[in-house]
């Protein structure tokens, strides 16, 4: 038996050890644990010949890449599949994956913590507030060089050669450099139940604004709400009616390049330029005609998409991810159709389609060079035909490889939504584009301007509010924000 003193000393000692262990646990990965995100030299013998992979990276140095994976409509299987084959090919590379639907908040917190070691090497969504400020501050790695990489499965071709047309050109430039690279995009527009359209004989490809309005009138006459979107998250309207439509109008008016540059740099007027007023006025007109679903202000995005599956609404404003997102609730024989909202007046004019924000990859600049190189290799790996096919078939992702989209045998295996979008782009004179800003503004007046617009989108859709006075108020707030930013 232990005497009282010994017992007390032992219990005190155990408690002290536990406390130290707890404090050590709180200490994170600081210290000598390079494996968390770093490189471990395998052979340091002087004069030893270093074996290299075909991409020029050493086989003997172990690397662990920390990956922040946003799990959205496409899920995570497509990434896990690519990651497995990548690790099999490059066994010295390990992936430490943190996957979450709330990756934006996780990123923001990690970035604000200012600990580069704790930060992800690679992440596939923007943090809250966007990436412009990060890129300007040198926190992100430029990715222009990935476009020049040889494709892992077609070494005689560069990445740029086999990517979908327009992807390189539409990748946003910040201070003249590209900081993002998408491997599985989502294009926006109106998605519908193809069979329902066939049953009612509705026009599945209205070419002009007038034809589109006729279609909406036909649908409404048949007792179905023509369009829905989640009023709880009104920015979803953007997939079909957003900035891409302003670009379309600017293109029709013959000054799209100037317009895009103005948009990217917050050149005034933003809210009250003629194209923006026109776009919102058209949206409001549809609202006054009662073309948006009843109860839309109370719907979340799943509910709005369910309305289409259940035949309560004919079309939903969303992206190609809808099919994978709703696969558990969709009947087996359900086939998704797709159309963009045509603002154009004739078929000679170009339709502009929103390229989404899904799976745009970013690399943290303050990481070891070898990690950044492997992160770029992983991104290039995700655009191999095999990985693209897997993502397209299983997640409904739009392939980024044009040789996949152009191969009828491979294209036939895509999900119905992806096929519908690709067919639509092939059948129409269409341009995809990702709208983005190249400067950041932190003045609170900008937040108020955006809030003002966000809260009124649903009012416009319900035909309850003329957009012009709201646009003017938003412009005034933005003007103050821009002026404050100049000081």
């Amino acid at each position, binding site marked *: 038996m232990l005497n009282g003193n010994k017992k007390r000393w032992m219990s005190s000692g155990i408690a002290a050890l536990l406390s130290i262990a707890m404090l050590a646990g709180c200490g994170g990965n600081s210290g000598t644990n390079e494996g968390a995100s770093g490189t471990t030299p395998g052979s340091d013998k002087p004069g030893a010949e270093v074996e290299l992979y075909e991409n020029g990276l050493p086989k003997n140095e172990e690397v662990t890449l920390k990956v922040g994976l946003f799990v959205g409509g496409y899920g995570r299987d497509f990434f896990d599949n690519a990651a497995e084959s990548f690790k099999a090919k490059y066994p010295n590379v390990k992936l430490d994956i943190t996957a979450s639907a709330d990756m934006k908040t996780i990123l923001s917190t990690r970035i604000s913590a200012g600990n580069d070691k704790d930060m992800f090497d690679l992440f596939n969504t923007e943090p809250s507030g966007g990436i412009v*400020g*990060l890129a*300007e501050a040198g926190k992100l790695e430029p990715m222009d060089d990935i476009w020049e990489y040889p494709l892992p499965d077609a070494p005689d071709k560069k990445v740029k050669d086999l990517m979908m047309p327009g992807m390189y050109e539409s990748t946003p430039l910040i201070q003249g450099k590209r900081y993002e690279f998408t491997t599985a995009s989502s294009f926006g527009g109106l998605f519908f139940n193809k069979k329902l359209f066939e049953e009612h004989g509705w026009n599945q490809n209205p070419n002009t604004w007038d034809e589109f309005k006729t279609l909406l009138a036909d649908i409404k006459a048949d007792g179905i709400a023509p369009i829905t979107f989640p009023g709880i998250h009104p920015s979803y309207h953007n997939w079909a009616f957003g900035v891409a439509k302003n670009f379309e109008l600017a293109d029709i008016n013959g000054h799209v390049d100037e317009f895009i540059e103005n948009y990217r740099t917050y050149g005034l007027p933003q809210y009250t330029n003629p194209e923006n007023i026109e776009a919102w006025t058209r949206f409001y007109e549809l609202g006054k005609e009662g073309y948006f679903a009843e109860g839309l202000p*109370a719907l979340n995005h799943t509910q709005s998409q369910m309305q289409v599956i259940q035949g309560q609404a004919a079309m939903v404003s969303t992206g190609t991810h809808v099919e994978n997102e709703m696969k558990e609730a969709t009947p087996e024989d359900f086939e998704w159709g797709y159309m963009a909202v045509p603002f154009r007046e004739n078929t000679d004019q170009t339709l502009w389609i929103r390229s989404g924000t899904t799976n745009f990859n970013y690399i943290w600049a303050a990481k070891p060079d070898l990690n950044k190189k492997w992160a770029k290799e992983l991104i290039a790996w995700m655009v191999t035909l095999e990985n693209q096919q897997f993502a397209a078939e299983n997640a409904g992702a739009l392939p980024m490889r044009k040789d996949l989209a152009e191969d009828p045998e491979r294209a036939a295996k895509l999900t119905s939504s992806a096929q519908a979008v690709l067919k639509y782009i092939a059948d129409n004179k269409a341009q995809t584009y990702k709208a983005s800003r190249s400067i950041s503004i932190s*003045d*609170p007046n*900008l937040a*108020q301007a955006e809030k003002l617009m966000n*809260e009124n989108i649903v009012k416009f859709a319900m035909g309850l509010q003329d957009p012009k006075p709201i646009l003017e108020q938003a412009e005034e707030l933005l003007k103050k924000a821009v002026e404050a930013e100049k000081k």
Partner: protein
Amino acid sequence: MSDSTVVKAPKAPARKRLGLDKANTQKWIFLIIAIVPPFGGYLLFTLFPNILSVYYAMLDWDGFTDATFVGLSNFVTAFQDKYVWRALTHNLIFMITVPFFVIVISLLLAYLITNKTYKENKFLKVLFFFPNVLSTVVVALLWAFIYDGSYGLLNGVLKFVGIDVGNFYWLGNESTALLSIIPAWVWGGVGLYVIIFANAMLGIPKSLYEAAILEGAGHMTRLMKITMPLVTPIIRVSALFLVVGTMKGFEIILIMTNGGPFGSTDVIGLYMFNLAFGVEYRNYGYASAVGMILFVILVTAKLLIDKFVPNRGYEY
């Protein structure tokens, strides 16, 4: 305690001193182990970030680039920000209604559970507590479905009793959304307070009730003259927790309406969250300034409760 043990054990004076030293050291080790981790955690993870927020509130800072010191400018902007005032108005409505209903309903249910000998009492306790086991997300989604226009339970029940409101979306209408959130919030909060109040009531000596019954006191007299006065300190603390929780909380609103429709359910916590973690906008400095305003309001609410809710304790 431990000192007395040490005094008894050694016989020789030298051993006695050694024992006392050891006991003293052990006492300090114990105190350090017991106090430092929780107090250190409080300092590090609660107090320090809160104090830091005061400094952040004076910065124009997006969280990762160099911050600019802007003095009180964020506070000036916040006081001129109509969304801050609108959100605070909504908070005030929730702050008055939610704690009131939670306390009244909880007291009623707790009184029935403790004073009525229903055979299902144990089951009822579990049933009332059940919403507290559910996460806020589940509670919010559950009520969002209840209020759904097409398939919602509420419209179904109303139709069943002869009130046909058609496909009315309770959360999609500016005039009903805010009021519709209150029952969900109350439902999610009642269970915990039923248990707290029931236990407080069970702690009241039976002899007080027996004496009152002998003197002819009825249910209402016993409730108002014995039960209520003796549970008042618990009600007071509960009111404080509820007021502070309602003022700070926004999760249920984030899920049910995200502040809509048209901002009619926006609250200060949600606004602050969106300022700090918005999709297109991020300004930790301004969000911190709004947070400081919330802090001042909470301290004021606490002082008001201290002043106006009686803090009389009764010994029995």
